[in-house]
């Protein structure tokens, strides 16, 4: 589906992504893990067109998509969420969702003046769809709240909700789980699996919660220092010495003190 070849992205002299090569199979839910600063988000940003790569190539279903603008990629079916929520603060949560689908006829000025009937119909459908998504995310009570005024976790949910508004081919999720309640995260995990199974979405998931990765992802790619460190099933990754050292660690050292009270 997506093939990344020798991708390099430097900031000043710093190589945030340092010759990473990986491929993402169609229909998979690929996990992307790695220590903080490994370059995962930067990799996403380069693939999604937010950043221009210093060198390297990205192809999607055989087409070269290196350096295409994000809005182009969106129309090719590539969606992403942001690690730090990027809501539209002055718009209501529902509007945050309703704005997503591309090619709405109401986005042409001419239609807003003379094609009001058609727009009204489309809007009705969109609204229903948005409400459905909000309901799924358990935040239907926030539909008319301004997105700038909801809690941090709710913003992350909205972020996810946007990807559910359209039929995507591949969705990049950057730490959807951080700050989201675990019970809800499970539901989200179910939804991802369902979208994957029923609609054939491909997912790439960055996440630090190993339980979540375990439930969802196969294969898992581990990055470190801008390179791909290991790739395989989670079990394989978990057994990898390097990964343990760089990323997973060996648990709390102060465990003994926990019991004091």
């Amino acid at each position, binding site marked *: 589906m997506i093939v990344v070849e020798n991708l390099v992205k430097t*900031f000043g002299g710093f190589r945030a992504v340092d010759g990473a090569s990986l491929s993402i199979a169609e229909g998979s839910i690929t996990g992307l*893990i*790695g*220590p*903080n*600063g*490994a370059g*995962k*988000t*930067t990799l996403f*940003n380069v693939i999604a067109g*937010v*950043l221009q790569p210093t060198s390297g190539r990205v192809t999607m279903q055989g087409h070269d998509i290196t350096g295409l603008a994000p809005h182009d990629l969106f129309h090719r079916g590539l969606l992403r969420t*942001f*690690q*730090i929520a*990027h809501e539209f*603060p*002055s718009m209501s949560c529902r509007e945050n969702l309703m704005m997503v689908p591309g090619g709405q006829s109401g986005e042409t000025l001419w239609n807003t003046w003379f094609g009001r009937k058609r727009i009204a119909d489309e809007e009705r459908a969109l609204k229903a769809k948005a409400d459905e998504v909000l309901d799924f995310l*358990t*935040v239907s009570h*926030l539909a008319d709240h*301004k997105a*700038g*005024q*909801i*809690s*941090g*976790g*709710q913003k*992350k*949910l909205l972020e996810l909700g946007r990807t559910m508004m359209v039929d995507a081919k591949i969705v990049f999720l950057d*730490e959807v789980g*951080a*700050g*989201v*309640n*675990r*019970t*809800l*995260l*499970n539901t989200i995990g179910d939804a991802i699996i369902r979208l994957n199974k029923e609609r054939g979405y491909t997912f790439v998931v960055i996440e*630090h*919660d*190993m339980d979540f990765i375990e439930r969802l992802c196969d294969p898992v790619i581990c990055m470190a220092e801008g390179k791909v460190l290991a790739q395989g099933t989670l079990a394989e990754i978990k057994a990898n010495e390097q990964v343990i050292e*760089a*990323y*997973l*660690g*060996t*648990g*709390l*050292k*102060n465990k003994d*003190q*926990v019991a*004091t*009270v």
Partner: protein
Amino acid sequence: MTDNPYRDDRGNNDRSITKSGGGVAQPVTSGQSSPAPGTPFLIGDAMTGGYGKGPDILHSCTIAVEPGEIAVIVGPNGAGKSTAMKAMFGMLDVRSGRVMLDGEDITALSPQQRVVKGMGFVPQTHNIFTSMTVEENLEMGAFIRRDDFRDTMAQIYDLFPILKEKRLQPAGELSGGQRQQVAVGRALMTKPKVLMLDEPTAGVSPIVMDELFDRIIEVARTGIPILMVEQNARQALEIADKAYVLVQGANAHTGTGKELLANPEVRRSFLGG
């Protein structure tokens, strides 16, 4: 497009676009504290309040922590956990109820007066100075300290080695997890008498999370009370001495970490089974 995906406000760093008006937290403006003997070290007692002129978010919510303890707040998204923290820190008007620290009623104190009283806080979002270097961020953490804070800084660099490496880089250019480490480091620099952390581990890798929890336990055992919001509830509750479950701005369950972990209803509803 800006070259920095984190800075979503059109690189403008002004409040023009991204920060919407209305519903803003109104910090308390300075007032007097008064003695309130016989209360826990830090307690937000029956707090009720909300943003600006909006509806109440907190409904008579009580949260307390004693020296040497780790208290953890969990709850669904939007329950009011962050709001409760802000209320205790004076970032928002408490309409009824009070906040007490070390036997003093500090409800009327402004946030910076509370800092002087020894409170440290890591907010959930916007918790670093993006345009300042990592080192300057830490220095700002020590703003109220008049003593030599170099060894505290060294300790923090020990704890988060990556920060030492990125010492001279603007914090806004760091990765999500690195930013989180800066934020916690900044609060630790205060050498606070009480430390409040709003989701300190969101986005940090397992190894750093372990380090962080280790460090939090250490700090707590030196006698500093720690109040922490966590979504990574299972791990947090394991190290918690006391835990609160907030639902819709009110206390739903209270107990030791172990108790709540053992409570099937809490597990199912809030801890993800």
